[in-house]
């Protein structure tokens, strides 16, 4: 059998921000435990934060802001559909995290009095703490390497394995060669990112999006198959970012005094990123395109913005603006709605976890964009990486041995071999991905209605059949891509059934049902959960009340 096998105690799927932090934390508290990381790209620069970062969006600095205030802000931002415990715990631990990162040499911007530079990103409170660290991922990777962790590059997770009700490992695939690998593991921490390859970007390319396009919802689908519950899949978030380039800049420019204006020069936001909904509304009402103006800022601030934009997160922006002859001193930056993404870190879709990063399945934890701790950003990935590791270590110590499910491995191998077989197949894989994502863009994002969403479900059946029977592949890369497209299709299924279930409109543009245009707090201020049914094609949905001990009165805008 063409399958490689390995054994480890804790398997971390995904070596980005959350995965690195989980590995470091686990080794800190239990150096004797074997840890293995599977990374889809190359570990040194990988994940959504492939290079550096300009800020930690959520830090509760003592005497300046506190977790209760953050909870208020996030509950308002999520219109009440947020479990308070995870968000509260994250805010509580955020300052310790900042101190830890600072100790590792991550540079936070401090003024002469020794205070951190804070910026307003949320509706209330100044939680965003500025950072100037172009080599953040490098620092993390170095820390992991020092801890003697096994790292396997170019592996994407395909499926989790279970031993009874307990997690016993995972099956992965080499994204270059298409080899399968099976790892037996006592606990698994899923850090495989969100779904950033949903509908098509408007640039005309399949890739080149806001989030790392390697995040194709692998984690969602692995969790779903293993029995975890997905929440918030109907939240199709779209942000207004640089036209054509879709690169992040709102938090960097606006918090430093930039103005977001509509085409009639009405100022929507200035100095704080607190009215994202208003931006979407302005575009919907035909007041777009929006733009960011920095002209009025002093030279000092503009060069600071340039420095951060051009070095930290996506340095390629320098090239982009230079090509277009855009100088922030004289020109505005045009914004345009990006493609939709399903993401636990910036949106609110993902595997539902509690404050222990536990998914509800014995031995399975989730952290980062794959888990739903709404709008947790980088802080959440780091904090929940740590939390997941702490709990996984505890559980690992109680487990003696686990068996992998040989039958399931065999069925995965058979499926892979049939997909590799090119006989009578004639659809080009790029064309296939293009069409799938075009159709997703047609039917899934707002405005939604029951008819449209059902249309997608019909298309989905066609696509799943084509994927097995008609799409031809050339090499291992294409095979891995075929699996990614399968995950994209299945994420769209989840999004569609969740949207059908939620018979109301909420979160502005992210979930607007033209057949139920009103927000119904009475009946729908709760989670819509998606579960895998008894068969591959079947998805079940249920609803669950929002939980949490610090439940505050929900803050309604206006």
């Amino acid at each position, binding site marked *: 059998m063409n399958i490689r096998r390995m054994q480890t105690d804790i398997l971390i799927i995904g070596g980005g921000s959350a995965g690195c932090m989980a590995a470091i934390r686990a080794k800190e508290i239990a150096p004797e435990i074997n840890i293995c990381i599977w990374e889809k*790209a190359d570990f040194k620069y990988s994940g959504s934060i492939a290079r550096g970062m300009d800020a930690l969006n959520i830090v509760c600095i003592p005497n300046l802001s506190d977790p209760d205030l953050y909870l208020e802000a996030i509950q308002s931002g999520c219109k009440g559909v947020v479990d308070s415990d995870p968000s509260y715990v994250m805010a509580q631990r955020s300052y310790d995290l900042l101190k830890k990162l600072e100790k590792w040499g991550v540079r936070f911007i401090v003024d002469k009095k020794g205070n951190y530079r804070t910026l307003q990103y949320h509706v209330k409170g100044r939680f965003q703490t500025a950072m100037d660290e172009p080599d953040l991922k490098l620092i993390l990777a170095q820390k992991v390497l020092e801890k003697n962790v096994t790292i*396997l590059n170019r592996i994407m997770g395909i499926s989790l394995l279970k031993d009874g009700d307990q997690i016993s490992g995972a099956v992965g695939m080499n994204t270059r060669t298409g080899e399968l690998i099976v790892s037996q593991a006592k606990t698994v921490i899923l850090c495989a990112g969100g779904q950033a390859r949903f509908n098509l970007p408007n640039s005309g390319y399949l890739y080149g999006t806001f989030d790392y396009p390697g995040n194709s919802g692998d984690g969602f689908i692995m969790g779903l198959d293993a029995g975890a519950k997905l929440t918030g899949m109907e939240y199709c978030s779209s942000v207004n970012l640089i036209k054509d380039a879709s690169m992040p800049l709102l938090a960097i420019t606006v918090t430093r005094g930039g103005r977001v204006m509509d085409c009639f020069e009405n100022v929507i936001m200035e100095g704080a990123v607190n009215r994202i909904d208003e931006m979407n509304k302005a575009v919907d009402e035909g007041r777009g395109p929006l733009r960011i103006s920095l002209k009025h800022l002093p030279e000092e601030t503009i060069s600071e913005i340039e420095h951060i934009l051009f070095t930290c997160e996506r340095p390629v922006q320098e090239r*982009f603006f230079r090509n277009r002859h855009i100088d922030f001193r004289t020109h505005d930056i045009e914004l345009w709605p990006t493609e939709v993404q399903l993401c636990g870190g910036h949106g609110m879709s993902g595997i539902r976890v509690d404050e222990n990063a536990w998914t509800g399945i014995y031995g399975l934890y989730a952290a980062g964009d794959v888990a739903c701790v709404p709008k947790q950003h980088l802080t959440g990935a780091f904090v929940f990486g740590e939390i997941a590791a702490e709990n996984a270590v505890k559980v690992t110590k109680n487990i003696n041995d686990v068996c992998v499910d040989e039958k399931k491995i065999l069925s995965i191998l058979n499926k892979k071999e049939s997909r590799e077989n090119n006989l009578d197949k004639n659809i080009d894989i*790029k064309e296939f991905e293009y069409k799938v994502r075009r159709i997703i863009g047609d039917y899934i994002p707002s405005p939604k209605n029951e008819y449209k969403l059902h249309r997608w479900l019909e298309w989905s059946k066609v696509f799943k059949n084509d994927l097995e029977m008609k799409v031809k592949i050339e090499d291992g890369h294409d095979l891995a891509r075929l699996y990614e497209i399968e995950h994209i299709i299945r994420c769209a299924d989840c999004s569609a059934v969740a949207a059908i279930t939620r018979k109301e409109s909420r979160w502005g543009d992210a979930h607007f049902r033209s057949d139920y245009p009103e927000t119904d707090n009475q009946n729908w201020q709760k989670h819509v959960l998606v579960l895998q049914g008894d068969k591959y094609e079947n998805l079940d949905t249920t609803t669950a009340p929002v939980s949490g001990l610090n439940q505050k009165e929900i803050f309604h805008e206006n």
Partner: protein
Amino acid sequence: MRIDDSSIRVDRDTCIACGICVERCIMDNLRLSVAPCRQACPINMNCQGYIRLIALGQEDMAIQQLLPFGPLLNFIAEKCTAPCEKVCVRKQKDGALHILELKRYLVKKYRDQLNTINVSEKKSNKTIGIIGTGISGLACGFKAIQSGHSVFFFTRSFDAGKKDNILDMIRKVLENFKAVFLNDKDLVDSSGQVRKFDALVLSSLEDQQLLGSEFKPVPENTHVDKISHQLHENIFCSDTGASKNNPVFEIARAFETIESVNRFLNNEPLDWGRGFYTQEGAVKAYKTDFRVGNDEPRIPMENVLGKMDADTAKKQASRCFSCGRAFEKNQTCWYCLPCELECPQKALYVDIPYLVK
């Protein structure tokens, strides 16, 4: 819809086809087209790399390309039969590049720099026993020291009598890096127990006899695993019936063996990803069975050394066609730039494609 607009530009003059950008590519977009000389090399040495660098007048950088082979280069430069020159593209036109001569030129000129070992920053507290101090054993020891392990050599009684200047030179370098040389009798202590190591490497299958009755020898008809070189648990053998035509194959086997040892000590699957890079244009990283003809031994190194000086070397090197280079294969660029950042030659430029520009 098929938009194959390439956004990554590789400068052919300066690219040394080292493959770092391919390793770094986050979207698995880049691939390396490997130059024939490198494909033919048993130890996958980047000939194009150091030749291009000589041609560009950057000999200090050229040495960096050779450093991973350290003192073994003394042996390679002397004994290699240069399969690279047999496949050189230039051969069709006006005769193959004198690749081996250029290597010898560098080895002679920078011998002091090469007779050292860059030990990995990642410290290991593992001990490795190696039986045999021929080139195979020494190459194993070199690679193990490079990986940060402590190495104990056991000189076989029939090795001890042989006198070889090159091997002695390598041995001295290893000794400087704390390798311990013992007699094979020391392998078994006074109570008859074989000394314990985290991993044990035999340079010949026959060395099994030294392990005594406690270790069950492999039945004669089974071979050592060709990819992983594993014999039994933590015992490895670097001898898998290598081609005797080119002694450099011994070094290739040794490197593969230590790669397996490292994976074994690190709990990784031994054969994962090895021998599978067979797709067109992919890096052939662990190739073992590429042989080019039967080669006759070359003129001894010392006799030719005087011929090559800096100018002729540069002139000779600039004949190189630079066949290998990185290229964009899958059109999946995310413009994240680590490829550009890590390129040692700054030969790669990520442009923004027309549709986004």
